[in-house]
């Protein structure tokens, strides 16, 4: 492609709209414009220049702001669809019953919603592709426009052609008595207004806040870093998400955290002692939780210890894990997520003679780790033939357990005493009379008490992408603030030998503040009054269209 030679003799890259040197319009379209398009300072934008090869076409597609906006709107609408019904992770149903839950609770709509994958919308491939396309659009559009804009801003000339200046939104023309004095006064005032002033003969360029033009590009960089961080999570080692239930008094290995052990010393649930009133009473809420806390001790195996060796654990620290106060160690964090109160820990039974209630001794059964046989001395003993922690009825004559949590312990005991040396068999379940499958017994196991304890549930999380996300977020914020709270202001002034003045001004946003500066300098340097060409245009087409 050929370069464009401007009337001033400068050779511009193909596609340039306004001459890089003097600012003359170079395209027919630009020549027609009353006010020049200054978005990219008239520089050659790749996507607006080439459209031949397939790469050009892809590039042009993603660099288009129109496409970018369309992608934003599509993402926005899609994201909102995911909030019509609760997402799967928030549905209170077992993993396998979720599909049924949607149909049961929300009817045909729920079934459809789930079948279309909308109940897990944010992790579907098409939603992720959408976000990916948005990311590509951000990258391509930023490169497409950012680089030419940067070149053009860096190589600005002070002297511009009259046709450039007259195409700016703010223009002033007239005469002054003393050219040099006017230029000096304008320079003085603009410097006082914190503008950077450059002069070239009878021309002057005052500029302020150029860096504001880079704001959008900086925030796009931040967004890309953020999205890259999110994607890094998919790599192994960057992200750990485990869960752990641990009973009071237990020491357990922390899943996902090699070599670390944690002991649950105590779980504490506190409630507010406020007098319920108003809405709290209406909703039947008697107490409001105040604190969920687990006091723990964190241990680490010494280096080189065998995986199962728990004898030489080194204590790292004591900590109280509370909501909002996770335990942090070595890049990992343990969060208080859930709890179960009063889980059975130990049950005690007395072996008694059914007729006389004479006790022969007591057994204390650790429900998580029961012994096979308990010797009561004096020739009596109790054997546990079968133990079901969470008894759920019989299956083919065998007692069945629902879970391994001792919610409803049941035992098949074999009781041996000096008077019944062959032993008697009895099935004992809480709060039920014992079953005696092999005939009438002389002895029975009498419930003598139980001990309970609480169980705490932690989430163990490691997310090595957090620092990347944080950096991305900060760069984004910096870019947004620069782009929003500062603006790029420029004032061009040329004074001819006979005192003819041509002044033009540009601001990328916030014309209101620019006009304050212009008013100040106009008064101070006795410049001719300026006009706002867009305001005039609007007055002319008043009561124009009535459509959206």
């Amino acid at each position, binding site marked *: 492609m050929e370069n464009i030679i401007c009337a001033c003799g400068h050779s511009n890259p193909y596609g340039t709209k306004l001459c890089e040197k003097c600012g003359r319009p170079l395209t027919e379209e630009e020549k027609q414009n009353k006010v020049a398009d200054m978005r990219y300072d008239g520089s050659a934008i790749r996507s607006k220049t080439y459209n031949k090869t397939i790469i050009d076409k892809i590039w042009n597609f993603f660099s288009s702001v129109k496409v970018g906006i369309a992608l934003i709107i599509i993402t926005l609408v899609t994201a909102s669809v995911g*909030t019509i019904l609760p997402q799967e992770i928030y549905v209170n149903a077992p993993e396998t019953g979720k599909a049924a839950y949607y149909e049961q609770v929300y009817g045909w709509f729920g079934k459809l919603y789930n079948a279309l994958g909308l109940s897990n919308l944010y992790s579907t491939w098409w939603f992720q592709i959408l976000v990916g396309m948005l990311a590509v659009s951000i990258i391509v559009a930023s490169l497409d426009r950012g680089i030419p804009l940067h070149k053009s801003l860096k190589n600005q000339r002070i002297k511009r052609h009259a046709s450039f200046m007259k195409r700016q939104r703010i223009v002033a023309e007239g005469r002054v008595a003393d050219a040099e004095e006017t230029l000096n006064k304008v320079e003085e005032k603009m410097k006082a207004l914190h503008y950077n002033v450059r002069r070239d003969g009878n021309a002057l360029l005052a500029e302020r806040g150029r860096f504001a033009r880079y704001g959008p590009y900086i925030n796009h960089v931040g967004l890309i870093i953020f999205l890259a961080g999110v994607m890094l999570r998919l790599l192994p080692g960057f992200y750990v998400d485990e869960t752990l239930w641990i009973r009071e008094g237990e020491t357990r290995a922390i899943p996902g955290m090699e070599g670390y052990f944690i002991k649950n010393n105590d779980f504490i649930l506190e409630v507010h002692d406020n007098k319920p009133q108003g809405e709290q009473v209406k909703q039947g809420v008697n107490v409001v939780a105040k604190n969920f806390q687990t006091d723990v001790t964190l241990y680490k195996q010494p280096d080189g210890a065998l995986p199962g060796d728990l004898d030489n654990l080194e204590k790292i620290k004591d900590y109280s894990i509370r909501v909002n106060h996770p335990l942090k160690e070595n890049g990992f964090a343990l969060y208080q997520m859930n709890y179960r109160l009063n889980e059975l820990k130990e049950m005690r039974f007395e072996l008694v003679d059914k007729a006389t209630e004479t006790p022969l001794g007591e057994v204390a059964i650790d429900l998580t780790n029961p012994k096979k046989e308990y010797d009561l001395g004096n020739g009596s003993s109790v054997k546990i033939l079968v133990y079901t922690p969470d008894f759920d009825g019989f299956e083919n004559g065998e007692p069945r357990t629902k879970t391994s949590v001792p919610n409803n312990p049941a035992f098949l005991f074999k009781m041996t005493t000096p008077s019944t040396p062959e032993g008697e068999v009895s099935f004992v379940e809480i709060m039920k009379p014992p079953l005696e499958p092999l005939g009438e017994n002389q002895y029975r196991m009498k419930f003598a008490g139980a001990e309970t304890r609480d169980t705490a549930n932690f989430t163990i999380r490691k997310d090595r992408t957090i620092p990347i996300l944080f950096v991305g977020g900060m760069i984004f914020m910096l870019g947004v603030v620069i782009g929003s709270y500062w603006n790029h202001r420029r004032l061009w002034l040329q004074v001819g030998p006979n005192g003819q003045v041509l002044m033009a001004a540009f601001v990328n946003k916030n014309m209101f503040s620019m006009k304050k500066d212009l008013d100040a300098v106009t008064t101070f340097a006795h410049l001719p009054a300026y006009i706002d060409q867009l305001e005039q245009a609007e007055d002319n087409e008043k009561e124009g269209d009535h459509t959206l």
Partner: protein
Amino acid sequence: MSLIDISGNLLFVAFIAYLVALLFFGGSIKQSNATGKNTEKWGKAAIVVTIIGFLAHLSYFVTRWIYTGHAPVSNMFEFTTAFGMFIIASFILIYFIYRVSALGLVALPVAILIIGYAAMFPREVSPLVPSLQSYWLTIHVITAALGQSILAISAVAGLVYLLKVVDMTKPSKQRFWLEAVMFCLVVVVGFVAVSSTFSAMDYESKYTYVDKEGKSREMIYNMPPLFGMNGYEAVEEHGMSPLVEMPALINAKKLTTVVWSLLVGSILYVLIRLIIRRRISAMIQPLVKRVNLQLLDEISYRSVLIGFPVFTLGALVFAMIWAQEAWSRFWGWDPKEVWALITWLFYAAFLHLRLSKGWEGRKSAWLALIGFGIILFNLVAVNLILAGLHSYASN
């Protein structure tokens, strides 16, 4: 009088001050239209009364904070009241940059309606659940609310812009939708009227019902039930029985509230139309006929520019930091989170459209109104309808 009573009274003072300030703003504009004399005086009085109201509002906020021991932004009443306060603060800020009195004509009624709406929620102090006990409650919620309020001023400027430019003499889509916005404002008045009437009467009817998971529950209506919950049975009924029974998916109590508000709002709207004998927007139009359109457009754009970074920081950045501390993940696609993201995407689209497609003036004004609609949806609908982790804000 205890601190909490003082706090409540201060809020009432603020409410009255905003009403008075609104009259002054109206007066200042009438003056400037008629003779031009005394405009200054009226305008000054208006902004002074607004500032007095704001100071009272701020004192309510501070005293309630001292009394409860946490930033008063933890439930629907507290948050919405604070949102109203920040809207007034943003208005005062923008007023001192641009000095456009006509903005007050829309900003104050919006703030008044929001405070009125807030007052319909339970006002008693409720203790904080563990997940809310964090300094991030203060930082995240206040920054997010501040961002939303500044964005709201963009809609205020947009509305003034449209009130001026939309031709009221000929039927058009814009004329229709502008009046629809006015109607929505009247419906909020309807909600406040109907809620406070029944609450003054201490109305209460109690029912049992079967929820969507098949459990039996109890529901107390504070308005005569138009709609009954799924499988409802009266425990204690007053005045009327529900006209229609709703399926379990629909909260018939909330639907009842919505329909009562729409009903009373519509009656009010018809009455207003009968009295003024034209559209509400047509009635307001003469008041804004002297505003500078270019300036309003700029205010609308500038508010988005100022508000967008604040909103991003509060509703996304701080939100993510807190979520990581409290819930172990910075993002969980909870409805409130998603709607904060939607709001953010919408304003991002707004900024890009404005930049490159030249959507200025009317189009930009409509977009600003839609943006505020999304913010209100996130405040009202997401808290009250879409259940999620943020729904503690609904009681």
